[in-house]
């Protein structure tokens, strides 16, 4: 199921497949093979890992117990068990650990992923020109955090109707991301829906920073300058991804709404004092 991606295989995925082959070959030959998690990081993309820890934990004791008792005369069940093990989760050796690990480990892992995605998307780096590589390990925690943070900052800055301000900001950003993605898809572009949501959320980071600065300093000129700079930065971050997704004759049609959304958010930041 994770192999339904049509983006060229990531280096770690290819090694996963080789690893699976080695496992099956090894299980046919001899006893249990140790399963090394290929990525000590997050559980596999786009699969539901809920069942796999239980499956893995149920089967792994048996698989480990069986081969000493029964010599390689039963390769099919063992290999089937192994295949089921590794089919259920690529790094299944890590899956039981994600349930029993300390909370700080989970949070640290998600935070490090958010930071690495942020560095890929928002800051200049050599991978930016290739959108497929740029946000390979997308997630939605980062965008969620940035949208909420921006809504909260605007709400704090507002002197009247604070809850309405938060509601409008959140609605504009969330619905805006969905509508922008749909816009690209309808124009015949090729993007993955959630990857695009993730990217548009990460590109909000400069505007978040601008909103915090504007909250602290209430001078109109400074606000204008700061918001303009962060606006340009956000648009620059989102540009290569969107423009690579559609054909050349419709690029402006796909890019214009992105700029519109960021400009309207920038305007909200300036206007709310």
């Amino acid at each position, binding site marked *: 199921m994770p192999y339904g*991606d049509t983006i060229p295989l990531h280096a770690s995925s290819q090694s996963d*497949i080789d690893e699976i082959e080695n496992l099956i070959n090894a299980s046919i030959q001899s006893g249990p093979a140790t399963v090394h998690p290929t990525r000590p990081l997050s559980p596999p993309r786009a699969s539901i890992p809920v069942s796999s820890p239980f499956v893995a934990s149920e089967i792994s004791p048996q698989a480990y117990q069986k081969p000493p008792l029964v010599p390689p005369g039963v390769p099919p069940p063992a290999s089937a068990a192994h295949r089921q093990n590794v089919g259920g989760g690529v790094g299944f050796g890590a899956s039981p650990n994600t349930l029993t690990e300390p909370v700080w480990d989970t949070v640290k892992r998600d935070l490090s992923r958010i930071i690495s995605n942020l560095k890929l998307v928002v800051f200049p780096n050599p991978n930016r020109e290739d959108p497929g590589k740029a946000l390979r390990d997308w997630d939605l925690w980062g965008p969620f955090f940035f949208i909420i943070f921006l809504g909260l900052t605007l709400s704090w800055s*507002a002197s009247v109707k604070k809850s*309405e301000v938060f509601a409008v900001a959140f609605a504009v950003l969330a619905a805006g991301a969905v509508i922008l993605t749909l*816009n690209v898809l309808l124009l*015949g572009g090729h993007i993955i829906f959630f990857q695009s949501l993730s990217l548009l959320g990460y590109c909000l980071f400069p505007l978040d920073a601008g909103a915090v600065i504007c909250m602290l300093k209430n001078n109109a000129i400074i606000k204008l300058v700061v918001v303009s700079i962060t606006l340009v930065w956000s648009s620059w971050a989102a540009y290569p991804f969107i423009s690579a997704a559609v054909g050349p004759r419709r690029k402006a049609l796909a890019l214009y709404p992105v700029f519109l959304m960021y400009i309207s958010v920038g305007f909200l930041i300036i206007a*709310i004092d």
Partner: protein
Amino acid sequence: MMSSGGYTTIDDQKISGSVPTFPPSEAQGKISGVFRPPPDADDTFSKPAPGSSSDGPQTGGWMSRLTIGSYKPYFDVDTSDVLERIKDSLFPFKATFTEKTANNPDLYGPFWICTTLIFVVAAISAFVAYLAHKWQKKAWDYDISLVTWSAGIFYGYVSLVPLGLYLILKYFSAPSGLVQLWCLYGYSLFIFIPASCLSVVPVEVFRWVVAGVAGFTSAAFVALNLRTHIMSAGERWFLIVAGIFFLQLALAVVVKFYFFTITVGASSS
């Protein structure tokens, strides 16, 4: 023999009397026994309805409306098309818009012109109110309900008025396509964007003149483009056309009055 995907055909029946093995035995030992799209395939494989090859018309009527693919034909425009249609909307007396968009009405223009207009009106009216309060040294707070009200007015107008017109025309047996009407009304709103930008000028008379010109142009655009079509509706055609004209004019007046008429000191907009 049947050849599926990337498999080689099994021509020689070494296994007598048995069904050809599937998957073929040469795939053993490699996990890639399952067919995968070629590595240079694009993301359309992962999407449910990748366009015209989707099961749009075949599945049930209402289900197909939930796929993206069924709406793609309405976004089949290039940048140059959209720009040309916008330019057309600025010159109402040519009345060629409906002919040009009869075969390829788009919903991109209406939706994004509407959204831009909402934002521009909210922004400029906030700016105008800010300036007015500043000159009179009064405090001013941004009223977020400007955004919500302008969204309601414009989205509501562009979605409901063409719907009403569609029903009326159907009743008078001069049916017009609903999407064409949406397209027409959407593009007719474009002129309000430069009009709003011009309304920054703090002279009240100037603002009324700008609103009047914009409203008149927009209304003429809609009315003239529909006139030839509505004339086939019978004797009532003039009423319908006049109704359309004045409705658009009324929209311009409402927008001007609600967003660009600033009273300082009283409870601000």
